[in-house]
């Protein structure tokens, strides 16, 4: 069973939305996922609507590259497994049987410290600071949106949030690895930091791992990188500084305290200090590390 841990600052949102929930059966979810691997589909929530969702219109139907008139080479969806695993028991065997060529990619963020801070600032921006979304499209910046610029956490607050994210990632990875059908089709682990460092190389690796030949993968990655580099293609802006000294008000205190934790804390200290995006090979297994011992948490 997939167990979910959610940061405490999300809970007011959970309560507020609980009364107007719509829900789908696991069978309906499953059918929608199979359909979305077979042909272009929008979100599950608009699957019963006569008209497509605005996101589907902007990303597919009315996309400037005229996708409806092209033959697609890659088709599918992104999925937060937390949104389906707890209630709806998705039959991955049935999905993989229906679409046996399916490739699965895990999108990960290796820096747990920055993930935890991003989780907090994103939630605060959306729920408390008057911003429309946790991630802001540059075009949708609204007056009155006052994003969090400084986080006043001490070492214990940071530690608590980091362990929550560690648990979430541990659950995600074990859900994929323990499911024989997801594991069999797992083609690649894609790190957010790799995308930050070299977008073209990251996408070339992705396209190669999912089965394209190297020249086709190279061409496609080059196109993606070129399109994303254009001003209108770069719709998302990163809000946080890559240097956490600019973000954590008590950076020095946190650093000193984590350094007292010894070898268990090495990866966290490195991730705290990193000012350029990187995936540290020695910290790839940070999901499994005993961080509670490092941070004196019981």
């Amino acid at each position, binding site marked *: 069973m997939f*167990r979910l*841990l959610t940061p*405490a600052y999300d*809970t007011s949102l*959970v309560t507020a*939305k*609980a009364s107007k*929930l*719509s*829900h*789908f059966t696991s069978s309906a979810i499953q059918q929608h*996922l199979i359909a979305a*691997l*077979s*042909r272009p589909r*929008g*979100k599950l*929530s608009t699957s019963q609507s006569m*008209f497509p969702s605005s996101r*589907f219109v902007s*990303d597919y139907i009315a996309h400037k*590259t005229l*996708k*409806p008139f*092209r033959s*697609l080479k*890659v*088709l*599918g*969806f*992104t*999925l*937060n497994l*937390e949104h*389906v695993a*707890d*209630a*709806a028991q998705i039959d991955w065997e049935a999905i993989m049987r229906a*679409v*046996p*060529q*399916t*490739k*699965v*990619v895990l*999108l990960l963020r290796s820096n747990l410290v920055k*993930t935890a801070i991003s*989780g907090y600032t*994103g939630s605060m921006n959306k729920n408390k600071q008057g911003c429309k979304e946790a991630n802001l499209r540059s075009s949708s910046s609204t007056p009155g949106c006052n994003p969090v610029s400084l986080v006043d956490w001490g070492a214990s607050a940071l530690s608590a949030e980091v362990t929550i994210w560690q648990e*979430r990632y541990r659950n*995600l990875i074990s859900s994929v690895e323990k499911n024989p059908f997801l594991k069999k089709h797992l083609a690649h682990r*894609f790190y957010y930091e790799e*995308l*930050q460092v070299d977008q073209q190389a990251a*996408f070339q690796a992705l396209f190669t791992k999912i*089965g394209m030949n190297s020249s086709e993968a190279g061409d*496609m990655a080059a196109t*993606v990188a070129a*399109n994303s580099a254009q001003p209108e*293609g770069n719709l998302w802006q990163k809000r946080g500084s890559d240097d956490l000294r600019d973000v954590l008000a008590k950076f020095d205190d946190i650093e000193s305290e984590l350094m007292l934790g010894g070898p268990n804390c090495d990866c966290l200290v490195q991730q705290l200090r990193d000012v350029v995006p990187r995936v540290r090979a020695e910290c790839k297994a940070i999901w499994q590390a005993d961080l509670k011992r490092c941070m004196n948490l019981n």
Partner: protein
Amino acid sequence: MSENPLKAFDNANKPTLLMNYFPEFRKGFSWRTNPIMWRVSRAYHDVAASKSSVAMLVTFLVVGMLWAVYALHTTHYTDMSDSAHFTHIPLIVIKLPRSGSSWFTDSINSHPSVYLSKEIVQRSDTLWLKARTVDKDSTGMMHMRCETQPCMHTERTCACN
């Protein structure tokens, strides 16, 4: 009183110029004698009478065209729904929040031959949230609990099986 010579010239040449541009007038064409054009003309005047009507008409046409493309395309892919005939690679990207997935999806979708549906299942689509509520204690601290069973919560978190 003599007529202004310039005005007289204009009046004399107007019909000729008009017929140059609209040869139908030479053949005795009349908007009112052509039932189709007459109705189009009437409709145009009726619609043009209101800017909001024009806006509605344009919106309706755009939405209609988008819906038609959507319906046609859905039908096309339904016809080739047998996975043996796929020419594309079916891809599932599994992720957590705050992993850069919005940026990832927008970037990969910028390629003309790639389409990934962003976060296809949302939190509100499934049942699990209904099992959770949040209580505040006397100090204002929030505690989560599961309605169906005792919540195993630590100081800051809660897990509902």
